[in-house]
């Protein structure tokens, strides 16, 4: 078990190093940060001085080493646009993104799994076909368009839900949460659904496919031959067996949920990291971009670790044998 975790950790470090290199390399070549930091009538000489002060003239390996060493200390430098430590900026934005991502992941799971189970068990029911059709429409429209349509319908026309922002947030010191106020919760609904829709569809279809598969497994036949109730078979045996792939995919998806939050946050002006990142890309704010990438990778690695641990909880076979690929 410990070995297992340590192995994951080592892998994580390797992944992080690679990501760090990518982040560093790529952003090193995007645009010219100097232009962003100063107004347009700053003189070339002042620009050159600035370049030197920032160390943008040093050899690449040196810059990278500096980058990794700083990153390891949680120091991603100071945002070119905001003049604030990137770590602080991200820390301030992290709660918004995490709340949004987790809410949408929950939405995807809580709606996707039951719908998947239903459509898997009642393959030919009209309602199941409807679910499938609707879910297909859901993945046939780009997220940003769905978001805009939601705003158009629910905010502008019906005026039920707010069109932007997080509503009232409560500051707990280490964390700001929108979950404790009515306006915060209301503000969460549209973005969370927009962001979760795609994953919901995915999970629903996955659960359905797995369910169909598992329901044909020999052990389910044997359960039926033993006269177990439909409920016990469907939920006690079949569902549990479908969970292993669902956990994998959900884990992977949560990672991409956080990444796809870029779009949702842009559409809904959700003050999270994605919005910060996109602004940073537009403004060539290298420190933010690099830190964001590293953070995404770190989150992803962490999620993977949790997924691996969940496997062990769900699947007894793994406890002995180590994880089968």
């Amino acid at each position, binding site marked *: 078990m410990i070995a297992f975790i340590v192995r994951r950790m080592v892998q994580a470090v390797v992944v992080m190093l690679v990501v760090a290199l990518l982040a560093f390399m790529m952003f090193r070549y995007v645009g010219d940060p100097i232009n962003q930091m100063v107004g347009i009538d700053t003189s070339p000489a002042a620009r050159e001085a600035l370049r030197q002060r920032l160390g943008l003239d040093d050899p690449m390996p040196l810059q990278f080493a500096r980058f990794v060493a700083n990153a390891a200390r949680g120091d991603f430098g100071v945002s070119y646009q905001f003049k604030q430590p990137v770590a602080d900026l991200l820390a301030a934005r992290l709660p918004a993104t995490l709340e949004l991502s987790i809410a949408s992941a929950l939405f995807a799971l809580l709606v996707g799994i039951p719908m998947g189970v239903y459509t898997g068990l009642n393959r030919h029911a009209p309602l199941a076909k409807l679910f499938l059709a609707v879910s297909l429409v859901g993945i046939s429209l780009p997220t940003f368009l769905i978001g805009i349509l939601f705003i158009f319908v629910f905010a502008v026309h019906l005026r039920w839900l707010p069109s932007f922002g997080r509503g009232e947030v409560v500051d707990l010191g280490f964390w700001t949460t929108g979950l404790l106020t009515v306006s915060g919760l209301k503000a969460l609904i549209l973005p969370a659904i927009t962001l979760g829709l795609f994953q919901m569809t995915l999970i629903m279809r996955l659960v359905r496919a797995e369910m169909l598969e598992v329901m*044909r*497994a*020999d*052990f389910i*036949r*044997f*359960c*039926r*031959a*033993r*006269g*177990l*109730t*439909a409920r*016990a078979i469907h939920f*006690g*045996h079949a569902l*549990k*067996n479908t969970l292993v792939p669902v956990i994998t995919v959900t884990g992977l998806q949560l990672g991409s949920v956080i990444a796809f939050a870029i779009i949702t946050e842009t559409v809904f002006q959700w003050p999270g990291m994605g919005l910060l990142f996109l602004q940073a890309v537009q403004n060539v704010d290298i420190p933010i971009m690099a830190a964001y990438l590293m953070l995404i990778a770190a989150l992803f690695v962490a999620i993977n670790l949790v997924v691996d641990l969940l496997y062990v909880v*769900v*699947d*007894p*076979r793994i406890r*002995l*044998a180590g994880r089968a690929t």
Partner: protein
Amino acid sequence: MTPVLRVTNLRVSFPTRRGVLTAVDGVSFEIAAGEVLGVVGESGAGKSLTGAAVIGLVDLPGRLAGGEVHLAGERIDILSEAEMRKVRGRRIGMIFQDPLTSLDPLKTIGQQLTETIRTHLPLGRRAARRRAVELLEEVGIPAAAQRIDAYPHAFSGGMRQRVVIALALAAEPALVIADEPTTALDVSVQAQIIAVLKRMCREHGAAVMLITHDMGVIAETADRVAVMYAGRIVEVGPVADVVRRPLHPYTAGLMAAIPSLAHRTERLAQIPGAMPRLDAIPRGCAFHPRCAEAFAKCVLARPEPAVVGASRVACFLHEAAPEPALATT
């Protein structure tokens, strides 16, 4: 005495694009209490489907297209799904071929056993667990009390099949259908499992329908044997008769084709060709294209089962005998 199981004219068919395929066609047999009926036949002959039809587990799109199934005199093929569920496990137990895939990998065998026991018997959690341990001991699992909380993957193939037997017999059913219970196992283990199965059924007084393609197992285990070919029973009778004096040319060919330890031959007798596919079952007697003794009539008409001695055989070679009433009450 009413037989535990009486199947009359059972038909199972599958609607397909190419028309309706009849995989089990007019099968009739019965099993008395304490009796072991062996069902043999080549792959695809319809053995498993017959078993599945008895317990009401024919997978869609397959369906019971005709015939009746009586369990202890009660007709069960017309029961609703909910009623049938109470029959399964409680009055009919079933054992499948592969012990590896028959058990839910994510639940301990204890959970699976107590769940089954409590579904059918009015026992509390603890009582059910005690019963589960007893059952495991009965099927010969050493240190049952400790191993009950293990997951299936911790057991070897033979041990798993013992667990499967315990599960099938948990509620003391009157009829046990064992569908190739030893095919996936090694010879040395197969002998042990057959022994356990036989002992358990004898002790519980259960009737057994033992499906296998291994003539040897039948010969050693069954009281009577039914030989299936292309969805029909071609011959059914006491084991000794069928093995030693097969009446149907197919049975005879089969017996001769099996290499035997007892006498070594230079060449095995062989039946030419292979069993027809469901969508291409010949008219008349389904065996006629492979039959050395076929004559004109075999091509045209389908032979009905006729009683010959203690057996019944569906072959025009044995048509002479008059047909007695089927029921033996």
